[in-house]
């Protein structure tokens, strides 16, 4: 729809000079793209660009994807490039890794990352470690992607966040997009990367539209893996997050701004390799740090950030201990009130920020 209106608007704009007196033109609406469509676009462009790229996973072809992320791809590329697999995570993840070793560039979808646990040996022992073990002889150019973390009402076995688990392992790259621009730029970079990349998407973000800047509309739009983005500049406190919670942090920042507190919100974009420079530079400016993530607190992403802050130059700039906001330390419950209180809410982030700032 956005594309069609784009086509119509340009000629109309040209005419607008003539018609200025009689017509009132509002600024043209920017292109809005959902995270789902952004991932779809990214995969489509890379499938077109390189015939070695292919997608496999459960329901990715004829069903258009369990969450419709691969909609239209099977129709366009056919059975050879878009492959429906049986329910055999360990088997098809291994097949994908083997194909990558033999020179193809597979995108292996896990319907959710919870199911990747069945295949985690292939991700870590067969994919992540192989380049190192072979002394640099055998690269594994594979992408593992799928929704990660909490959804809505899907309970404990379907709600785990794997950022810390995959982020733990050398040899892997792990990215965690928040918005559409992130999603497209990161999936394209992941596919072009010659290393195993885990792309942790978020099911609740799939349907959320975001403004797509013009550069993101290019077929060569890439977001570098390993670089965080400062989503909002601020001076009083650094708030670091990844994936869906980035949006909550921005909401918290908007609320606090009215009270005169300016938060600098950093969207990590990549879990491994982590962009500590951006985080440290920010902390050295604001002197306060809060980390926000959906995963469990123990041995989590926030724990790692805090440990590294202690080890680096930013420690001496802290005016208060660094604080973590995380998922509750429980398997995800089902009842809505319990589920809502098991993930970081905006009020929890605001509370943590105020505590850190002692206000």
């Amino acid at each position, binding site marked *: 729809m956005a594309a069609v209106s784009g086509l119509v608007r340009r000629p109309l704009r040209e005419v607008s000079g003539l018609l200025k007196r009689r017509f009132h033109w509002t600024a043209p609406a920017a292109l809005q793209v959902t995270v789902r469509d952004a991932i779809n676009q990214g995969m489509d462009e890379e499938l077109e660009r390189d015939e070695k790229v*292919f997608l496999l996973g459960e329901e990715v072809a004829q069903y258009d994807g369990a969450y419709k992320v691969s909609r239209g791809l099977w129709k366009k590329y056919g059975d*050879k490039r878009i*492959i429906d*697999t*049986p329910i*055999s995570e*360990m*088997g*098809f*993840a*291994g*097949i*994908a*890794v*083997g*194909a*990558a*070793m*033999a*020179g*193809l560039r597979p995108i292996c979808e896990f319907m959710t990352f919870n199911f990747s646990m069945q295949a985690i*040996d*292939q991700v870590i*022992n*067969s994919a992540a470690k*192989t*380049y*190192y*073990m*072979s*002394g*640099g*002889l*055998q*690269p594994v*150019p594979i992408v593992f992607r799928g929704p990660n973390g909490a959804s809505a009402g899907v309970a404990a076995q379907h709600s785990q966040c794997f950022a810390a688990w995959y982020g733990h392992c*050398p*040899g892997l*790259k792990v990215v965690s997009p928040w918005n559409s621009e992130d999603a497209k730029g990161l999936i394209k970079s992941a596919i072009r*990367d*010659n*290393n195993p990349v885990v792309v942790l998407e978020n099911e609740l973000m799939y349907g959320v539209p975001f403004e797509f800047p013009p550069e993101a509309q290019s077929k060569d739009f890439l977001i570098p893996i390993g670089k965080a983005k400062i989503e909002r500049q601020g001076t009083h406190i650094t708030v670091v997050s990844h994936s869906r919670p980035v949006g909550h942090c921005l909401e918290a920042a908007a609320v606090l701004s009215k009270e005169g507190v300016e938060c600098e919100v950093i969207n990590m974009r990549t879990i491994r*390799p982590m962009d500590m420079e951006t985080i440290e530079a920010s902390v050295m400016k604001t002197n306060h740090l809060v980390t926000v993530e959906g995963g469990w607190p123990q041995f989590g992403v926030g724990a790692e950030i805090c440990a590294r802050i202690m*080890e680096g130059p930013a420690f001496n700039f802290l005016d208060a201990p660094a604080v973590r906001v995380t998922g509750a330390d429980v398997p995800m419950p089902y009842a809505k009130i319990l589920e809502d209180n098991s993930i970081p809410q905006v009020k929890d982030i605001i509370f943590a920020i105020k505590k850190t700032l002692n206000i």
Partner: protein
Amino acid sequence: MRKMLAAVSRVLSGASQKPASRVLVASRNFANDATFEIKKCDLHRLEEGPPVTTVLTREDGLKYYRMMQTVRRMELKADQLYKQKIIRGFCHLCDGQEACCVGLEAGINPTDHLITAYRAHGFTFTRGLSVREILAELTGRKGGCAKGKGGSMHMYAKNFYGGNGIVGAQVPLGAGIALACKYNGKDEVCLTLYGDGAANQGQIFEAYNMAALWKLPCIFICENNRYGMGTSVERAAASTDYYKRGDFIPGLRVDGMDILCVREATRFAAAYCRSGKGPILMELQTYRYHGHSMSDPGVSYRTREEIQEVRSKSDPIMLLKDRMVNSNLASVEELKVQSLVHGGLKEIDVEVRKEIEDAAQFATADPEPPLEELGYHIYSSDPPFEVRGANQWIKFKSVS
């Protein structure tokens, strides 16, 4: 006539190592080739199997003999080096199973692909790496094929995907390589090996299903040496007919101690896959002389008598040698098992011994990889970055 010639050559080789004796041997009339009967394979879901006779040329025979002898001596050298503590960690030897690695290679092309588990030194050699690089990897030196980063279970070569430590994981990998073969459309096949122990892994059945569904050119090969570590096949598997375990996948059971049987079965299986019919399964019945690994004496779960019986009746190298000598494809002197007392003709065993000695020398003398390279090869194709060491002040550079 033969005996006289043999006597003459012995005298001459004793006297000096001169052209005269070589000319004498060269002028001996060896057969160019000979036809042998081989054991019929048990078949599963197949109307016909591999042929029951095969032709072996003198040239091929000498080549196979040399290769098997090299693998045998290399493994025995590894045993020695391990006992001297020059090799450490895991060391799984394949002596006794030489007909498998050499026979499989004889049945495929260098452009085909092969993946196996951790008893991989023989395959690493038959797929093209030198004994030198293999032993140096075992001793953890920079001249090792993986620069000392991988060790016994992680050696790679062109179209050889290791060397894999996790039992069974290599089977889906092999099916994936076969997928790539089909995707690329170049008529290549992938030999995907696993042991009798691994045959009970669930992921193997997942791989069977997908390989059959998508008609992948994958030859699943169960190298059945009767024991998964210390557990005999009867104690591990409800069905020990490993060649039938692929169910809907046709299978053959092959005498894995007879290199010609292995070769013919492999040719048959490869032709089957190349014709687009999908995967096929081969069970190679073989035997390992050593225990599961160097930390296993190998006699608590099987008898010395059993090991001795296989050695004396079914040794793959002995079987080939006997066939060749009895059919006049080669002379014993040419093949000679005992060390040469008087200098003289180059004999394969002597050459092989020397090759192994030189390689062991290298593997012992080559320096360990430089500490600076500890962080290398984390990522491929990336600019250098820093890797953390044991504490925050120790940093290693990582280069692709």
